[in-house]
Every structure is written in structure tokens, then in C-alpha cells.
């Protein structure tokens, strides 16, 4: 598993549940260390053990925790850089949704060994979309639910999201757009790099 993903989990746990929770989790998962390096590759089983230990420690289902992780990735000030990268996807929420087809390629363009599962957006109607998450990263669909919800807020769109579960090969997320310009949304300044 790419260190960036492990590092994201670490950052989320520390910011949300505190350093002591993270230390308990790494101990329970038997990592033998407490800090993931963003630019190293780790065994997949380490990530699985960390998520299992976290779920046990918090006594919450993993899917819920992963949704919160998705929200954290977009909305927490620690992750402003990632929010900006996602906002490059489009000027409106709908444009952003369409850009998800390229997300895996975009991620690889930035970090060549970061492989994210393929996403495919299907337009059911101008107000309803289905996002198909292809396999490759267990729990990715749950994270995406949190990401999509937080990005909707970021654009000021009002959207209802539901994780429909597995349908054949893919996991399906339904996005119902209630109002594309519901609120002001957060500002995105193209030239504000590195802030």
C-alpha cells in the first residue's frame, strides 16, 4: 500500500481522535513503528491491520470511519493541498463529478506509483448520477462517499449520497443533486498555490 494512503489514515486518526489513539492502534496492529512515511511503499496487510485495530478501538464499523476519512481529506485545513488538487477537476460540482473518470490518471500523473481504482460516472439524469468504483483498494468506495459529500459542501452544492454496495464487479454510489448552487461554497483561487 502506498505510504500516502497510510499517511492519510495516520493524519486523520491523529487529527480526529488524538495521538494517543494512533499510538494504541499502531501497537494493536503490531506495526513496530508509529510513523508512516508518505513516499515509501508498505505491505497491504499493514493497512488492513491498522483499519481493523482502529475499528475495534473506536467500536465503530469500518465503513463509517472510512467515510469520515474521506470528509477529512477534503475539509480539514491539514489537507488544503489535496482539496485544491480536487478542485482543479472542475468549475462546478457536476464538472467535478465528471472529472472523477480521470482521478486515477491524475493521481498517477502526480505520483507515478500511486495506483487508485478506476472510477466511472454514469449520468442517470441531470440531477442523478451513479459512480462506479472498480476494485483494487478495499474501502475506497466508502472513502469516496465522504469525499463526494465534502466536495459538494466545498462547491456549495446540496447533494444526497448513498453507498449502494456491491453490484457485480463494482461498488456503486448514488449522487442525487438537489441544488447545484445551494450555498456560497468555498473560494478556489487558481493562483493561490502553496498556501
Amino acid at each position, binding site marked *: 500500500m502506498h505510504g500516502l494512503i497510510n499517511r492519510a489514515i495516520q493524519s486523520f486518526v491523529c487529527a480526529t481522535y488524538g495521538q494517543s489513539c494512533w499510538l494504541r492502534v499502531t501497537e494493536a496492529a503490531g506495526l513496530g513503528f508509529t510513523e508512516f512515511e508518505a513516499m515509501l511503499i508498505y505491505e497491504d496487510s499493514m493497512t488492513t491491520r491498522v483499519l481493523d485495530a482502529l475499528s475495534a478501538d473506536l467500536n465503530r464499523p469500518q465503513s463509517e470511519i472510512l467515510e469520515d476519512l474521506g470528509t477529512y481529506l477534503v475539509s480539514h485545513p491539514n489537507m488544503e*493541498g489535496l482539496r*485544491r488538487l480536487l478542485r*482543479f477537476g472542475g468549475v462546478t460540482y457536476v464538472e467535478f463529478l465528471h472529472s472523477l473518470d480521470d482521478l486515477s490518471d491524475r493521481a498517477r*500523473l*502526480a505520483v507515478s506509483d500511486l495506483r487508485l481504482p478506476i472510477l466511472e460516472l454514469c449520468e442517470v439524469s441531470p440531477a442523478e448520477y451513479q459512480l462506479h468504483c472498480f476494485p483494487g483498494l478495499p474501502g475506497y468506495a466508502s472513502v469516496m462517499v465522504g469525499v463526494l459529500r465534502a466536495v459538494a459542501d466545498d462547491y456549495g452544492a446540496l447533494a444526497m449520497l448513498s453507498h449502494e454496495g456491491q453490484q457485480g464487479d463494482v461498488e456503486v454510489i448514488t449522487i442525487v443533486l438537489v441544488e447545484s448552487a445551494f450555498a456560497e461554497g468555498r473560494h478556489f*483561487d487558481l*493562483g493561490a498555490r*502553496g498556501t
Partner: protein
Amino acid sequence: MMDTANLSTLLETLCPMFVMVDGEGKILNAGPTLQKLRPDQPMKGRAFPDLFELVRPRTITTIPALLSLAGGKVHLKFHDEPRTALKGLIAPLPDGNGAIINLSFGISILDAVRDYALTSADFSGTDLAIELLYLVEAKSAAMEASRSLNLRLQGAMLAAEEQAVTDMLTGLKNRRAMDLVLGHLISGGSAFALMHLDLDYFKSVNDRLGHAAGDFVLQQAARIMEEETRNEDTVARIGGDEFVIIFKSLVDEAVLSDIAARLIKRLRQPMMFQGAPCQVSASVGTALSTQFNTPDAAELLNAADQALYEAKRQGRSRHCLYSSLGEAGIKTASSH
């Protein structure tokens, strides 16, 4: 043929940074994004050279010459601040009167989006500007993560290197470090003195008061040796209670004897460990690199060792110079 008004409408969509000029270089129309760069100065009607400075090609000085550069690339700059650099491509108008100059930011795009608060709507849908900006941010973030990893790895490497030459109990150099220093000094042809110091009665402290007391004594002895030597000297613990001090560029036996005497005096002071006095002392032997025509490490260590042995033989708490051994007639006793 399409008239210039229709052409302008088309260009506003396809290349929002175009300029259309007539044969005299007067601006007939400018794309919306280009105009956004100078919101207070309507470009329409101005002379092209009044707004832009031609940076390259330098040989072009007149408007007809500029407009004749069909398909040619030009580099421009605004005359006023911010002096954003622009790249341009010239396409003469079909009727031979005037030209379209399509401008773009090139590498200056990073500053331009900030200076002019540009948004994705300012670029044509096929322009790679947004992708370029995305890539710059993504790569900077990835580079930053790599850089911080490199810094941590470098820190870990330095710590590992330090540990590899450090005696962890006392913080002094270890035998490996001493070998390295000796090797350097000898290959560099430097003059130096090598002092071999052995703690007397250390074993009895260890036996009577335990290893914790022994460790304490070694740490105190190390501190004393560091205090009594210069920064450029090397103090190493090379065995249980054995130390070597290398004095760089110091081969004056009188000075060395003074140092040895001070060391012995201080090491003889009882050290208090948990209320119990620990009494040790030291025997010291010193050899000089200058005493050998072609010094080598083993030979020098052996010489200092012989002097140390003689100091012990004379009743401990003493310093003995290798140079004095000849007079005592045991210089050849190299078996020890």
C-alpha cells in the same frame, strides 16, 4: 470569406488571448482574457507596439516586418507593470492586410494566474493551462513529501554513523573511530602523540559495588579525560577499562607528561556512587609518531602499550614515556 467581426467572435471562443491588428499595427480587436490583463486600458484602437515590447526576434523593428512573420513565433512583454512575458504566433489575415497574433503565457502562467486572478473560465476548454497548474501543485506536494523523507533519512543516517563510531556507555569514540583517526593521521603524515591509559583497581570497584558503579566510574573517567584534552584530540574507549587519547600535532613530552599527571591526579580522587566512594587510579603510557620513521598504527599502539606496562610495573598511578624505555633497557620487550 468571413468578415473580421465574425472572425473575432470565433476567436474569442477558440483563443481568448488573440489580438487582431491591421496593416499599420493598430489593434482591431483583442480576446477577453488578454483584455482582462489590462482592465483599465481598452486595447481596441491602440497601437500594438505601444502596449507590447518585442523581446524576440530582436532583428524585427517595424510593423510590416513583424506581420510578415507568417507562422513565426514571437516573445513579447507588456511595457508597463506587471511586465508579464507572453508568447505569440502570427497568422496574416487572408486579405493580406493585418494579422492575428495568438498570445499565450508560456511558463509565466504561474505568476499570471496570481497577478491577474485568472480562473478556468479565462482559458479555452482545450488549453492545457489548468492541467499545468494542477501538475505544478501536485508535483510540488509530492516533492515536498519526498524532501521531508530525505531529511529524516539523512538524520537517521547521521545518527547511525555517529553510533557506529561512538562508545554508547561513555559517549567517547570507540575502537573503530580510533582506528580511523589513526589511519588519517598516519596517511596524512601528521605528527601526534598516542597515550594509552588503563584504569587501576577498576575490577575491584566492579566486584565490590556492582556493574552500575563500574559504569558510573567509566563515565566519570571519560568526562575527566574530555575535560583535560582539547577538542581536536581524540579520546576513545577501546576496551573495558582501557582508553586511548590521540593528541594531534602535540609531540612535546614535557607537555604530555603534565597532561598525564593531571589525568592521574584527577582520576585518583574518589568518585562517590550512591554514597559509596569508588577508588580507582590510572597508569599511562605515551608514544610519539615522530619516534618512528614510518609509523604504523599497530606499532604505535604497541609502543604506548609497552610504556603503559612499564608504568604499571613501577607501581601504578604513573606515567611512562616510550622514549624512556630504552634507558631502562626493556625497549625490545615487545611481547606485551
